[in-house]
């Protein structure tokens, strides 16, 4: 008995010793790590210079020489950075009516002119959201001591929205020419004088002779395993090639694919992603399939300060594929009208319009369209697209009338049904809603209308999917579960009855 007690006592002592030691150790180490957190010491030295993508309008220097001293590339790059930053801080200052940042990019006399505007606008509760999309500067003169530059900036495309009491009063795009004098002060190229010499409103580009697209029988395409993530780690061109053979074999000639904005690297488009897109387009060409490329997927900001970045993204992609034979059209954005409420109709339309202008200016060969989500919005910018495209998920019985009404409103453009389809899901969340037979019946019926009216179409979609990203349709199970079953082919690769009506 005594022995047992002794053992218990010893064990308790040893254990409590261990416990107390570990608690003390833990406390000391927490204290130690607390005093060692915070800024990295190397930051004191400012050794790395970070420049994030904030403002990247298209800038084309006219290198035709200049009076005075020869300007080297290093200096030109410095001037470019500071000159664009000067515009950027001016836009920010006019947006929020504060003057911070202006001191670095405008000399003492010049910044007074900006302060006057800010003072007035602040008093009257006016603010201006603006950006410039294009600059064509030309150094006219560089002084011998390297301290003064006279430059001319032609064809500056300036988009502006003027608000008073937070109500949009005016929206305008101006094209102007400026002359500027820049002085090198404190290692900044600061604007000393700025004179607007010419200005006019940007002429809206109306495509009077739209690019023809032929008879389009198509489908919206994502690989079965990687919907909404087509260019990721599990990219496999062989899978896509096999799918394209199925699509072509079914009698279809077109697919619609999506280019996600962030995944592609936003303003600095990643070369690897471009390469994957190229492989897809090359494979499509090999299989005699034309491609509608939808840009700006998963993008929804539309903020004026974001425009230059969006434009750079589009510029990079469109320039890379402007001569690709597989492309039939650029779809600027999928269902932008869904963002009208949250982002403002004017903003979204202006955003689309400037992208249309941009894409058209680069690629004159391929058609341009916008994938509206309903017939109501389809008339927006109808004269600026080459063909109108809209999506239809409403009652199939009204479709023919809706389409004909739209044709009356838009007589001079081909109207493409860019997305339509029905889920074959009929389970717990939506019992008796649908089935594979009902899906087949839907397609049979709509194909009759499509054939009768010779309507170009692209259905949704080839495969049933395993999972749908939350961003696409949300996390409500009665919404995303049916979304998985829109395919003509099941997850296991079995063709549903609807497959018979995929093309006719």
């Amino acid at each position, binding site marked *: 008995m005594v022995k047992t007690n002794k053992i218990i006592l010893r064990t308790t002592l040893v254990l409590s010793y261990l416990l107390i030691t570990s608690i003390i150790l833990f406390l000391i180490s927490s204290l130690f790590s607390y005093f060692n957190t915070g800024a990295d010491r190397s930051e004191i030295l400012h050794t790395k210079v970070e420049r994030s993508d904030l403002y990247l309008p298209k800038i084309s220097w006219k290198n035709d020489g200049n009076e005075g001293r020869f300007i080297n590339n290093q200096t030109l790059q410095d001037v470019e950075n500071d000159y664009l930053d000067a515009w950027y801080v001016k836009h920010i200052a006019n947006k929020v009516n504060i003057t911070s940042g202006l001191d670095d990019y405008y000399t003492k006399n010049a910044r007074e*002119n900006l302060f006057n505007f800010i003072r007035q606008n602040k008093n009257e509760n006016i603010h201006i959201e603006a950006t410039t999309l294009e600059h064509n500067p030309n150094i006219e*003169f560089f002084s*011998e*001591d390297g301290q003064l530059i006279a430059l001319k900036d032609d064809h500056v495309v300036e988009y502006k929205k003027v608000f008073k009491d937070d109500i949009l009063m005016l929206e305008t795009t101006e094209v102007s020419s400026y*002359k500027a004098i820049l002085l090198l002060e404190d290692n900044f190229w600061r604007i000393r*004088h700025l004179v607007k010499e010419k200005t006019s409103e940007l002429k809206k580009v109306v495509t009077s002779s739209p690019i023809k697209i032929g008879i389009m029988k198509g489908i919206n395409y994502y690989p079965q395993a990687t919907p909404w993530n087509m260019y990721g780690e599990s990219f496999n061109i062989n899978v896509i090639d096999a799918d394209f053979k199925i699509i072509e074999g079914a009698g279809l000639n077109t697919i619609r694919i999506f280019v996600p904005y962030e995944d592609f690297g936003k303003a600095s488009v990643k070369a690897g992603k471009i390469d994957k897109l190229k492989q897809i387009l090359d494979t499509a060409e090999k299989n005699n399939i034309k491609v509608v490329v939808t840009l700006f997927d998963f993008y929804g900001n539309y903020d004026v300060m974001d425009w230059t970045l969006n434009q750079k993204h589009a510029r990079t992609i469109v320039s890379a594929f402007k001569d690709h034979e597989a492309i039939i059209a650029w779809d600027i954005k999928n269902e932008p009208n869904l963002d009208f409420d949250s982002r403002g109709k004017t903003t979204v339309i202006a955003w689309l319009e400037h992208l249309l202008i941009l894409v058209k200016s680069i690629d004159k060969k391929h058609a341009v369209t916008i994938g509206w989500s309903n017939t109501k919005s389809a008339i927006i910018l109808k004269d600026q697209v080459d063909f109108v495209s809209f999506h239809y998920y409403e009652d199939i019985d009204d479709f023919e009338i809706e389409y004909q009404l739209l044709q009356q409103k838009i007589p001079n453009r081909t109207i493409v049904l860019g997305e339509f389809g029905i889920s074959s899901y009929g389970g717990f969340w939506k019992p008796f809603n649908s089935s594979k037979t009902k899906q087949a019946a839907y397609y049979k019926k709509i194909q009759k209308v499509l054939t009768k009216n010779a309507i170009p179409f692209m259905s949704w979609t080839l495969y049933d999917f395993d999972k749908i990203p939350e961003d696409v349709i949300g996390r409500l199970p009665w919404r995303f579960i049916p979304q998985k079953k829109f395919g003509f082919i099941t997850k296991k690769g079995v063709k549903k009855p609807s497959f018979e009506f995929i093309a006719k």
Partner: protein
Amino acid sequence: MKSKNSLFFLFSWLVIHSITAQHSLTLLTQEKQFVAGSVILLEFKADHTKDYQLYCTNSYGSTLITSEIKNNKIIFKIPGHISNKKGILTWKVINTDPPFSGKVQIISKERPTSLETYLGPPSIEAGNTDFTMLVVIPTDDLDNPLKQNTEVVIKHQFLAMEKKEIVFTNNLIAHQNIFSPLKIGRMILSSASLGLNSKEYDVNILPAIGINFNIFSKRNHEYADGNQITTFYTSIIKDKNSNVVSDGTFVDFFITNKKGNILKTSGTTINGIAYAKMIHPEWEENWIIKGYIIGISESNSLEINYKQVIEKFDIIFSSNNRTLTIGPLISFMNQMIPDGLQVKLSIYKEGELLNDVIENSKDGFVVFNLNSNIYENGNYVLKVTTAGITKTFRTIKLW
């Protein structure tokens, strides 16, 4: 004619806007060009009085202006900070259909009130090839650069020469290159435009790089005593236009001795002359010296000789041959050689060098002690060298 109000009607450019019948606004203001600083009123006739907003934008920013109503006219008064700035002013009446807009041009005033002047570089090299640049931005009292092709007179004076040149503004600035004269000095510059004179600016004209020069030497005597100092110096170094080179020009002197080894000394110029010094050798020498401004110019070759001072010396062995007393070391007038002459003792045993011991002379003598703990008793070969002379003692017995 110069008051603000009369300027307002000075230019009668006709603006005709196509105003459709259903439109209720008619522009009354006919002027399309204003001088900066004048009052700009945009007046409209309207059949009803209602507040309008006017968007207007110039070189620096944009804003909205609210209308005033006076005598059934709708008047927009452009704020001073906008009407003061040169450039295109675009306006647009908000919420009218069709859109009602126009442009006016604001030009700078006729005469400048300041000549913003930038001069650089501030010092240039004489000789007609280097130049400085004067940039002038004539601006009016509202800080607007004057119009294209404004005349600017650029004046400069140097010694007896005074010159005036006329240039015209282009891209808001006027500029002129001013080439350096042949002589050094200070050039005074100024500019003038339409009766306004700038303040005075100056540019230093500095000498150009030196051309080839001569070198000379100076010494107390020609003996190689290892004590006196020879000074080398240059002629007055000048540039190609005979300007004395800038003080501080660095001159290197390379000395090649009899064995072909190179010694180097250097100096910087003051008033064109550079001095450099070198201690005399300890034995007979023949030096060839050449001066260089590295990469720029060089001198002639100068040859100088040094005479041997010590022809012979005595060595006395004492304390079991372990103490060597060398001396007296006698110089050219039989005086004791100044302290510091180097004497070297080389100790050999059985054909093998054991040690070199170097001592400096003091009061004309040098004493070597060969420690018995280091150098055991026996036969040694000892060599004593000084002033280029070597004396050898074979089989000296230490005990």
